[in-house]
Structures are given as C-alpha cells and as structure tokens.
C-alpha cells in the first residue's frame, strides 16, 4: 500500500485528518492517543473542527419522529429523583470504597467513573437490550454496587445497578479477553435461587443495559452477579455451562 505522505507531514496533518474524520486503523489509534496526551494536538483538532463546522450548515433539517423525543426523555431518567441519586450514589460509594480496603485502584477509579456516568447518561446502547416500559418510580430504591472478582480476588468488573431506572452499568477493570468461539455471559443469582441470564457481554469496556421488570426484580441486595464463559452467543441451555470467571454480591453500600 503506497502512502505518499506529503512533506510538511506531522501531528498537525494528523489533527486535521482526525477532525475531518477520515482516519482508520493505526492512524486513528495514534490520533486518539495524541488527543489524550497532547494538549497542542487537542487544540489543533478543535481548531480544525471549528474551521470545518460551517459545512454542517448545508445539511437540510428534517423533523425527527415524535418517538425520538419520548425515547430521549426516558433515557435521561425520571424527573424528580435524578439529581438526588447522583449525590446519594456517590456518597454511598465513597463509604463503600472506604470499607473495601483491598480493592484495586483500577476498580476504585472505575466505580467512580461509573457513578459519574450512571444516573444521567446512557451513552451506549447495550447489545442486549431488554426493553421494558419504565414503571412509575415508587420511592426510589437505593442504587447498588457489585465488584466482580476472580478467585484471586482481583476485581474484573464493577457493576452498578440503579433500580429506579432499571439500569445496569458494567465497567471492565481487569483482563476479560475471550476468543471468537466464546462469549462472556452475565448472570444474576438471587439468594437461594437459580441463575438467570442477563445476556452476553460486548467487547467494550463499558456497557449500559436497561433490564426488563422480570429481571430487574432479581437484582436485590445480596444477589450475586456472575460472569461465565459460554459458547459464542451464550449458553445453549439457559443455565451457565462454562467456568465462572468473576462474581460478586450486590450490596446497598
């Protein structure tokens, strides 16, 4: 593959190409890395974005279907409890962090990141989306957290459950690689109950899922959340068939 880089090539060109949105593969990853680490690069990207932005004025407006607004309102959560939840949840997690002294720093950061994203944003649609009409929230039940560790107690996944919004957010902390023939399947096991599948996990480091009522009511204080290795696409039997690689109890911290 010929790549006729022109003379004045360098980060400045890369910033322009990144803002334009044409990069792929290694070049895209490099641009992302620079964006994270290099303030000069970030500024150059922002400058290019500003330069090119007037082009967007050319795009004709199209009225979106009414359903779009309804869906957005649903995703930004029920009106009253939202902001309170943020505060309550961060306070609870702060306490819980104090208790869980042995937790790894990575997991701590992740749970913090989760708290920040949980109540208001649901940026990524989960690959498994059990859609259900959001029930009118009763007095908002308290959010819960589970640290899913392996047998060596290393935290692998931090799960955060917001019962009011029926929203489960997972952040992957440890190594969770799988091969193309296998999937990681997520389970909830109520105290003294049998595992119910919450679906398979995507390859991303963070997942948001909205759970249907029937599943949501299983996520109670003390229930276990576990991840097993299953054939690609999930367990064929509806129960875990492969090894459990991480698990942890939901606590109302």
């Amino acid at each position: 593959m010929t790549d006729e880089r022109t003379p004045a090539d360098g980060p400045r060109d890369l910033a322009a190409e990144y803002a334009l949105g044409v990069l792929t593969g290694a070049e895209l990853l490099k641009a992302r890395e620079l964006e994270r680490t290099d303030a000069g690069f970030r500024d150059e990207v922002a400058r290019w974005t500003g330069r090119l932005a007037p082009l967007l004025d050319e795009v004709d407006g199209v009225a979106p279907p009414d359903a779009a607004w309804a869906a957005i309102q649903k995703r930004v959560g029920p009106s009253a409890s939202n902001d309170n939840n943020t505060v309550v949840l961060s306070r609870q997690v702060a306490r819980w962090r104090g208790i869980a002294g042995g937790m790894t720093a990575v997991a701590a950061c992740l749970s913090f990141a989760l708290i920040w994203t949980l109540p208001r944003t649901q940026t990524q649609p989960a690959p498994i989306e059990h859609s259900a009409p959001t029930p009118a929230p009763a007095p908002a039940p308290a959010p819960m957290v589970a640290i899913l560790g392996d047998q060596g107690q290393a935290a692998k996944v931090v799960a955060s459950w917001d019962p009011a919004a029926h929203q489960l957010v997972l952040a992957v902390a440890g190594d969770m690689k799988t091969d193309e023939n296998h999937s990681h399947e997520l389970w909830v096991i109520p105290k003294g109950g049998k595992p119910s599948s919450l679906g398979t996990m995507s390859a991303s480091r963070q997942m948001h899922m909205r759970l249907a009522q029937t599943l949501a009511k299983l996520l109670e204080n003390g229930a276990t959340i576990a991840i097993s290795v299953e054939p690609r696409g999930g367990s064929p039997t509806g129960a875990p068939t492969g090894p459990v690689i991480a698990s942890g109890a939901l606590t109302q911290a």
Partner: protein
Amino acid sequence: MLLCLPDPPADFCFPSSPSFGIERMMDRVTNDIAARASRDELTRLLAAVSRGDRNAFSGLYKRTAAKLFGICLRLMGNEAEAQEVLQEAYVTVWSKADRFDPVKASPITWLAVLTRNTALDRLRRRNAASEDLSEAAEVEDDRTSAFAILAEAQDATRLYHCLGTLDGRAQAMIRSAFLDGANYPQLAEREGVPLGTMKSWIRRGLQRLRLCLEQ
C-alpha cells in the same frame, strides 16, 4: 433561496443548494442577522439545561432537533440509526451542557459538532465491527473532541472562499468526508483510486486549506 420550517427559528433556515455563488453568500448574511437572536436564546437554554432544567431541555430540543436529525440522517444514511444517534446526542447534551462555552462556539455549532461526533463514533464502531475491534473499544470513553471547538475560525465565508481555491477533487473529497462521514478507505474505493492517492489528495487539500485560512 431558503428552506424554512413553518414559523422558523432562524437556525432552521438552510440554503437549499450547496452552491458557492454570491446568492449563497447573501443568504448567509441574511441568516446571520436572524441567527444572532436565536443564538442568545440557545445559549440561555443550554445554560439552563446544565442546571438540570427539563423545560429548557424540551425547548432546546424543539428548536434544534430538526437540524441535528438532518445531520444524523446525512451521516448514518438510514432513519433507524439516525434516530439512535439523535437520542444519544441529546442524552449527551443533557449531561454535558456545562461543557458548552459560548466564547468558543455558537450553540448551534456546538450542538451540530457534538452530533456529528456522536454519529462518527457510531460509524467507526460499525466499520470496526468487521475490521479492528480495538478501534471500537476505544471510542466509548474517548469523547474529548466532542466538546472542543475553537472560536477563531467558524467563519463560513472564509471557509468557502478557501475551499474554492482547492482543486475540485480535493474540495469534493473534504466535503464528503466531513458531511458523509466517509473515511480514507471508503473514499478511495468510491473514487476507484489507491488508498495512498486518496490520502495524498486530502492531505494536500487540508494543508492548502490551512495556509489559506491562516492568511
């Protein structure tokens, strides 16, 4: 010639064709005057949204959704995904409205760029699904640029003047990349040229564009 919605806020008027002539420039001047009024309104609404004001959020949606949905449709190419991107963009607006800085960008530009970046993330995930998963994994928490626009440019007249100095091919490719979300391999395939040639066209075009814009 302007296309306007009934009882339009100024931001809903768009030139009906992307021509580069004097007519277009006149349209833009007319637009700009009206836009200034609605710019203040949108700035006020965004500030209220950042404080969690749901009425303001609803007002903001009413005034901007058509514009942003148009961008989603243009980039995603189908209504279902365009709707999902629109939702995602507004959910981001709801949670990140405090990142809007009226000194650096006009509210509608900020919203349009945020929407475009949301659509781009999704296009990359779509592409990456068949190529390199590492690209997809990175996208999600990495949205710095979704909020950053620097003020100094955003000068449409200047941009169109400078685009006009490029050769037609580079101009068309740059426009297509920005507005259709086409990446290097897709543009190369579409034009039937080697990838390296496409990169060269666009890089040179961007370099010349920068020189012109910085004059």
